[in-house]
């Protein structure tokens, strides 16, 4: 069983920058999980924490039921493929792939034979001893867990107290920064001068605000973890108990039964075995003819395959991949993506894959984890994430072209719901309406999201069709991407299959730039997001920060001309002003 469980994993760097917040995930055996998100969202950092290349600041990572926080990467039984391939330049492809196999000793079970060459049957004392030792170890660990618990609780309490104190300080800072900002702003406005960019007081104020919000969230998360401590520990202790019981049963059985006896030896992997493994991996990847070449004589795609091959021969339970396709050109990337899917069927491991490309995530993953700025935004299968994005970020990140967003009104009249947009009314029927009723959602201003492919053109004007003016249209071959403009100058993208437009001449006239078109969409494709950016129908358990794009609820600090944030802003971010 090669499942990977991450509990409350956090990564804090020396300069107090939090790279990953509260990462929780249970990866099942043989599952293909993709971490996806924009640059700097913490996905690579999390992957490296699983691999052991980064220290885990808080939380636990366990592989195959064993907590691996303190284990060296080589002892975690993982294999990794890097973005830049990391092939040893002076070794041949064969040697590259055989490198790790030559380094380790392996345990081999050899049958114990009697004089005639037949396998001896008897009491398997070796395994009995091993099991007994393991029971002792488990008991000791259970003891440790029980001892740790109060200590852990005390630590968390202390953290909470410290965080609350800091929060108070941050609140006062925020108040003073806000005051300063307002007075300065008033001064500028009184003089009739435009506000400077960057506006130092504003930046300091925003930084203080961000800091305070971070701290508030911090306190929430500590409280949550405090609540979970005893439940988690209980589960762990239960697991231990179960394991111990099983071992005891095994011992009981072994003490009385004659089984074929094996001897466990520590050996180096023999050359023949290495050769076989490398050859079979090479055959699967189609690189047998390059086995004697050096990496410098290979193209990008071939190098990538060698990197994958090097990970394959180790037969490890968990396969980690850090943006492996990012360095390839577009066409090659598509090809390799398809090959990866094929490969997945041949390799019997758990995969954890990191990428910034949502297409890769959608096509490769069994489940996707979307991250932004260190926070997990949503976890789900590709279909879930596509159909039911939890917040605006996920909604706009997944799917190309990006989902169209509008500021609209959700109006509830009795038991009926409709969305009002640009003076048009779009009724909601069917399951969605039922769902809204269940959750007793009230009328409120919302952000409406509709994907470009879900919009269609209508010939006539109507109350449930938007009137948009076409700016440009892109001919993509089998479809058109129409960029149109809404009454409030917002840009909307619509995907229209070429077929639906009829003859070429008519099509050209129908969607020529400047034409007004009528665009409609059905109720069931509407995504409704509340004022904070969360999906009305799919609220997350924990409201994550940094949910939105384009300013809703987000604190953005503008750097100056040279891209620097001045010292005061930095200090405010760290709560030192």
């Amino acid at each position, binding site marked *: 069983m090669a499942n990977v469980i991450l509990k409350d994993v956090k990564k804090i760097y020396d300069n107090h920058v939090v790279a990953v917040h509260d990462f929780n995930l249970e990866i099942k055996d043989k599952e293909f999980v993709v971490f996806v998100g924009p640059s700097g969202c913490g996905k690579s950092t999390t992957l490296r924490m699983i691999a*052991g290349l980064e220290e885990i600041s808080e939380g636990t990572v366990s592989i195959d039921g064993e907590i691996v926080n303190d284990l060296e990467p080589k002892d975690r039984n993982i294999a990794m493929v*890097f973005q830049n391939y990391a092939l040893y*330049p002076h070794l041949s492809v064969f040697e590259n792939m055989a490198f790790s196999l030559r380094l380790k000793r392996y345990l081999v079970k050899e049958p114990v034979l009697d004089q005639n060459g037949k396998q001896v049957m008897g009491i398997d004392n070796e395994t009995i001893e091993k099991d007994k030792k393991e029971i002792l170890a488990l008991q000791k660990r259970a003891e440790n867990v029980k001892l740790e618990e109060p200590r852990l609780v005390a630590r968390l309490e202390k953290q909470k107290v410290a965080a609350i104190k800091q929060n108070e300080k941050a609140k006062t800072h925020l108040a003073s920064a806000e005051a300063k900002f307002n007075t300065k702003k008033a001064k500028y406005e009184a003089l009739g001068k435009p506000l400077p960019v960057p506006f130092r007081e504003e930046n300091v104020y925003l930084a203080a605000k961000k800091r305070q919000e971070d701290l508030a969230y911090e306190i929430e998360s500590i409280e949550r973890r405090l609540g979970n401590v005893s439940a988690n520990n209980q589960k762990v202790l239960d697991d231990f108990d179960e394991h111990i019981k099983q071992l005891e049963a095994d011992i009981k059985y072994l003490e009385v039964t004659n089984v074929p006896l094996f001897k466990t030896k520590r050996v180096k992997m023999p050359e023949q075995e290495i050769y076989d493994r490398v050859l079979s991996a090479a055959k699967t990847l189609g690189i047998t003819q390059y086995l004697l070449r050096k990496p*410098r004589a290979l193209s990008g795609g071939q190098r990538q395959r060698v990197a994958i091959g090097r990970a394959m021969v180790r037969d490890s339970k968990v396969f980690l991949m850090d943006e492996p396709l990012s360095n390839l050109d577009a066409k090659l990337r598509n090809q390799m993506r398809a090959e990866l899917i094929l490969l997945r069927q041949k390799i019997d491991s758990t995969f954890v894959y990191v990428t910034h490309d949502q297409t890769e995530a959608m096509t490769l993953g069994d489940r996707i984890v979307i991250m932004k700025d260190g926070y997990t935004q949503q976890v789900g299968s590709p279909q879930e994430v596509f159909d039911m994005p939890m917040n605006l970020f996920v909604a706009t990140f997944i799917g190309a072209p990006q989902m169209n967003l509008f500021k609209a009104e959700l109006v509830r009249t009795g038991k009926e719901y409709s969305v009002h947009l640009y003076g048009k009314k779009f009724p909601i029927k069917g399951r969605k309406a039922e769902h809204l009723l269940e959750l007793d959602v009230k009328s409120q201003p919302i952000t409406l999201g509709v994907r470009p492919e879900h919009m269609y053109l209508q010939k006539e004007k109507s109350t449930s069709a938007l009137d948009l003016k076409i700016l440009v249209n892109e001919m993509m071959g089998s479809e058109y991407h129409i960029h149109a403009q809404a009454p409030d100058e917002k840009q909307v993208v619509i995907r229209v299959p070429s077929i639906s437009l009829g003859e070429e001449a008519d099509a050209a006239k129908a969607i020529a730039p400047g034409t007004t078109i009528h665009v409609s969409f059905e109720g069931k494709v509407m995504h409704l997001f509340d004022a904070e950016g969360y999906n009305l129908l799919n609220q997350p358990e924990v409201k994550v920060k940094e949910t939105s794009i384009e300013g809703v609820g987000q604190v953005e600090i503008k750097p100056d001309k040279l891209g620097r944030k001045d010292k005061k802003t930095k200090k405010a971010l760290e709560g030192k002003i």
Partner: protein
Amino acid sequence: MASYTDLEYLKLPKFRRFFLKLWDFIASIPFRLLVLLFAIGRFFRGFGNTVVGIFKTIVLTWKYGDYKTRTSYFIMGFGNLARGQILRGVLFLLFEVAFGVYMGTVGVYYIKDLGTLGTVERIIGRGGKIVEFGQNSFDILLYGILTLIFIVALAITWYMNVKQNKIAQEILATGKPLKSGKQDLNSLIDDQFHKTLLALPLLGILIFTVLPVFFMILIAFTNYDAGHYPPNKLFTWVGGNNFGELFSSGGSGFGSAFGQILLWTLIWAFFATFTNYFLGMIVAMIINKKGIKLKKLWRTILVISIAIPQFISLMYVGRMFEADGLINSLFQSWGWITEPLRFWTDPMWARITVIIINIWVGIPYLMLITSGILMNIPADLYESAKIDGASPVKMYMKITLPYMLFVTGPYLLTSFIGNMNNFNVIFLLSGGNPTNGDLYNGTAGSTDLLITWLYKLTVNNQDYKLASVIGIMVFIVVAVISVIIYNAIPSMKNEEDFQ
């Protein structure tokens, strides 16, 4: 030997593969020699072609030349002047005149004695008064060579003059104008700018390096030493006698001394280069290690020791190891030893001490250089090895070392050669001592390099002829080593291995 497919090759055990490679190499030697022979042949043929071409130009230009051209064969620059190129014409003419003047006054006087380097000795009478001035072999040799060079220069300029006439005729025949003086000057800062820039430096190199080196090479074939010292004495050609002494056997002969000193020079260069290299690399690595704080502090401390002028450090540290120096005094006052340690007086001790102190001098430099390169090794190579389970030693051997050797290969070669000629370190530390009476009548010591021996022979013994011989031998050794290493190490050529 049978040839293998890739997969079969991989199945071969290691020693089998090694022998295969060795056999391939040996089998390729005759081929390589053939290639070399052809290359030499081609070179000579090219050379011959050029010579033939030159003669052709001279003859044909005369044949087809008009009167301006033909006159230029005798009065250089006439053709240019007659065709309106005043600047060029005047320059050529001046050169011819200068040459004539020089030859008439100085040149002829010296060149006639070049073969003998002077026959009339100076005679000093009673009371130190010079009765007869005699000839000065040194001057004869020097100015004789200068004259020869001048003659060669004239030949080249004359040829340029001829060629210009030919080109000028051809250009005029097509109706185009010739370059005026102003255009010439302009081109000197444009397309001929490289000539302008190089003129002065090359001239300096020619006069101050090439000429003296050439001169010294010739000295090796004379008997210029303390007993034949101008202006009081003459020296003359002795052909290959000095070189013959090189190969003479005999306990305290020149040849055996040379051999021993050469051996020590090579050993010293080897140790000096590689101890510094590896130790410097190790220091750079431990400073660079993740988890070590105050990296800048450690580097700065080491850098300070480079900042102090080397000769001061060397002189000072050298004196520390004297019999009455710091180290011995300290040890004696602490009661660790009763007699001073013979750092500089025992040959073996001296050699080891010199190497060790050189390590002290050299590590900071190497640390700086290797630091920079270490930081360029892609980090994910190490991470991948970490995941594969490599120990730190294995990572060093398989990742760091190959990369470093590749990048610093040329540097190691220059460093090795530099150490072979590292005058300052040896001279200022040990002075080449302890003197070894066996080495050519005690002119050299146990830690002397070829170059310091050269210095001593020159300054202390005025034995210039042997000094020149040593100089030439140093050159040969250095050249041979450079050629071998440059061609043997593929890393010097395969840049793409490491992208």
